[in-house]
């Protein structure tokens, strides 16, 4: 314990107190009081995080604070201990900062909803688990947070639990995450078995001494792959991404906080945190990179054909998470975290702005029924514009810096390849296209919705009080702050960000750097100049891709709005496949869900439960009845027959004894 403890444990516990107060007593509070409790505890966590930042330079890193011993079994030990280094500091700020802004926004967005206290209690609970995940100093405590955010996500997706689709979306998210967690857990078991610890520092110390597994699948590769399975579940990567688009059934602030800015990035954080393991397992790294790249491309194509404003953003989130994994997979962990941070700003903003749009048009989510909203809701329009340009990768907005850095690293890194880069750039073009498609459809052209939308059936969820209206100030302020962050968030620069994070990333790394000789230095200088030229060229291509996406969207959805339909008709089957998300849900239903349901129904329910278990029970009862039915006749009530039985019995005993004696 350091002489001047930071009391890191307070940061997650504060929101937990808020969750407990609202959860236990919130029903009796007024809305104002509920909001005050939720905001003050969440805000206190944010203030603590800022205070930690102010003390950060005076700390010896990594800084560990042990609160209590949790488990001890033989030599294995897991503590309630918190771990602070550059990586967790960045995550801490993103989670508390963006989380606090979204809390503020939610007050306005959810004001008219039933279950107001329940919503904020869940939201605070989510903050508790997310901060536990980020600050844990061992995999086990991290896993608690990991499962906890899954729980909060389930509760919030199914917030409108009377709606059937919301309830099943919650279940889907939970079940798909279980598959990922299965891999994660087995990875942890392997760590315990072979390293005897789950403590980050101890595990990485041991792992760093292992040889790099260049050929074949060794222990570290296996662990890395299993951890990646967990990350793919939580961070919605192929093949486990299917839950995230459905998770949009939850309230929009939830989509922004959990399913865009924070929780879904937990997988990226976990992979980055385990970088030592991955650096020693090139095969696992390659799998991470390939999965990330394919996800980025795959979901970007689906995003092009979605009509629900939130579904577009959901697929976009999946795609952007793919970029982060691509970065991790090529060894540019800090770039992955950089993109995680900027993505939290602009995607959080996009969701909040989309929520504001939905709020404005009275609950409508279909972009085909929007349009021309630019002048009606100017604040929302301008903030969303900032976010759209940021995600599309236009300089000098945040998304440009991080995405460009990832693409550059994917090209030049030793683990990278031009294939990753090419697919990444193409996905960036698609990203730009579907984002501007959304932008044009929503804000430009003529309003295509029904004029009397207040009677829309969705309006029960939203305040449909007359006409398209701008959202209240409490919703606009977070939008503006996030918009500012989306613009300036990248100005820190990939290099400086990398330099800040690298002590955390390279403290354990393989130290093979020998001081370069003069020839070596000259060669490196030449290389550096070549790389600079290369970087400039690659940046130009990336920006050109973004611009052409913008141009395509402008052409198709602003200039010639009838063209998309013609193209869709010309593409026929292919368009259908994309619009229906490549039938992946249907494929999974046929491959996994239906066999499972049928198997459960026919084998487990009708076979095992009804035949074997119930059968054994019923059979033993039936057997007892039949035996007693036949034995009952002995109980005749006839005194002399009883005496007769006694006499016969006695005679039998005597006969037996005589016979035994005779032997």
């Amino acid at each position: 314990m350091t002489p001047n403890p930071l009391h890191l444990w307070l940061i997650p516990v504060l929101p937990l107190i808020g969750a407990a107060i609202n959860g236990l007593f919130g029903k009796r509070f007024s809305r104002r009081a509920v909001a005050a409790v939720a905001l003050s505890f969440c805000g206190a966590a944010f203030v603590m995080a800022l205070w930690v930042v102010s003390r950060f330079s005076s700390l010896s890193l990594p800084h560990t604070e042990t609160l209590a011993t949790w488990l001890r079994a033989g030599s294995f030990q897991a503590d309630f201990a918190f771990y602070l280094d550059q990586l967790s500091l960045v995550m801490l700020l993103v989670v508390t900062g963006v989380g606090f802004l979204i809390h503020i926004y939610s007050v306005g967005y959810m004001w008219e909803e039933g279950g107001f206290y329940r919503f904020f209690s869940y939201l605070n609970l989510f903050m508790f688990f997310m901060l536990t995940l980020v600050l844990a100093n061992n995999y086990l405590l991290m896993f608690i947070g990991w499962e906890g955010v899954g729980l909060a996500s389930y509760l919030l997706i199914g917030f409108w639990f009377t709606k059937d689709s919301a309830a099943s979306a919650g279940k889907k998210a939970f079940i798909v995450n279980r598959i990922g967690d299965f891999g994660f857990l087995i990875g942890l078991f392997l760590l315990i078995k072979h390293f005897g610890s789950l403590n980050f520092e101890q595990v990485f110390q041991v792992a760093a001494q292992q040889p790099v597994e260049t050929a074949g699948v060794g222990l570290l590769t296996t662990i890395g792959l299993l951890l990646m399975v967990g990350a793919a579940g939580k961070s919605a990567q192929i093949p486990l991404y299917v839950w995230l688009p459905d998770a949009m059934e939850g309230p929009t602030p939830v989509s922004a906080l959990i399913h865009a800015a924070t929780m879904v990035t937990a997988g990226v954080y976990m992979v980055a945190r385990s970088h030592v393991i991955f650096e020693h397992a090139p095969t696992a790294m390659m799998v991470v990179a390939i999965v990330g790249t394919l996800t980025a491309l795959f979901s970007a194509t689906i995003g092009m054909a979605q009509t629900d404003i939130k579904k577009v953003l959901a697929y976009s989130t999946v795609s952007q998470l793919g970029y982060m994994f691509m970065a991790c997979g090529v060894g540019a962990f800090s770039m992955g975290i950089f993109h995680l941070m900027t993505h939290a700003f602009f995607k959080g903003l996009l969701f909040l702005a989309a929520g504001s749009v939905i709020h404005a048009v009275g609950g409508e989510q279909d972009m085909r029924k929007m349009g021309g909203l630019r002048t009606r809701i100017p604040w929302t329009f301008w903030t969303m514009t900032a976010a759209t340009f940021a995600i599309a990768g236009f300089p000098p907005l945040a998304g440009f810096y991080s995405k460009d850095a990832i693409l550059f690293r994917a090209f030049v890194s030793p683990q990278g390849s031009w294939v990753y880069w090419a697919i990444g750039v193409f996905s960036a073009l698609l990203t730009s296209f579907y984002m501007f498609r959304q932008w044009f459809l929503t804000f430009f052209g003529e309003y295509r919705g029904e004029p009397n939308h207040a009677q829309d059936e969705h309006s029960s969820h939203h305040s449909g009080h007359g006409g398209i209206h701008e959202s209240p100030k409490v919703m606009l302020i977070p939008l503006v702050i996030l918009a500012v962050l989306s613009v300036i968030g990248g100005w820190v620069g990939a290099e400086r960000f990398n330099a800040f994070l690298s002590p955390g990333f390279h403290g354990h790394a393989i130290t093979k750097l020998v001081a370069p000789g003069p020839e070596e230095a000259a060669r490196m200088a030449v290389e550096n100049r070549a790389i600079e030229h290369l970087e400039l060229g690659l940046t130009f291509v990336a920006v050109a891709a973004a611009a052409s996406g913008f141009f395509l969207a402008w052409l198709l959805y602003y200039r010639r709005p009838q063209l998309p339909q013609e193209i869709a008709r010309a593409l026929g089957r292919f368009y259908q496949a994309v619009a229906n998300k490549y039938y992946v849900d249907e494929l999974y239903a046929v491959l996994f869900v239906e066999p499972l349901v049928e198997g459960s129904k026919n084998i487990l329910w009708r076979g095992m439960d009804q035949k074997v278990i119930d059968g054994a029970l019923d059979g033993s009862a039936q057997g007892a009845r039949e035996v007693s039915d036949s034995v009952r006749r002995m109980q005749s009530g006839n005194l002399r027959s009883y005496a007769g039985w006694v006499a016969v019995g006695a005679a039998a005993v005597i006969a037996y004894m005589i016979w035994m004696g005779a032997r």
Partner: protein
Amino acid sequence: MIPLSYYLVLGGILFACGVAGFLIKRNIITIFMSIELMLNGVNLSFVAFAAHWHALSGQVFVFFVMVVAAAEAAVGLAIIIAVYRTRETLNVDQVNLLKL
């Protein structure tokens, strides 16, 4: 000296008579008397063994059996009277309230 087996056979015959009476008769009092007959059959074998082995414990047992039989007779007769008062019969086949 009469051999031991004579006494035992007589005791067995007495016991068998008791059992037979118990099983055949319907009157409670007769059944009761059959029980006494069985007890006395046993008593006879006790005494015979006691004389044969020159051990007093057999005779002590007989006294116990007699005491218990006397007590049993007192209780049993009381029960018989009570049964007769309520049911007005001594036929055991008609005292079958506990029958299923």
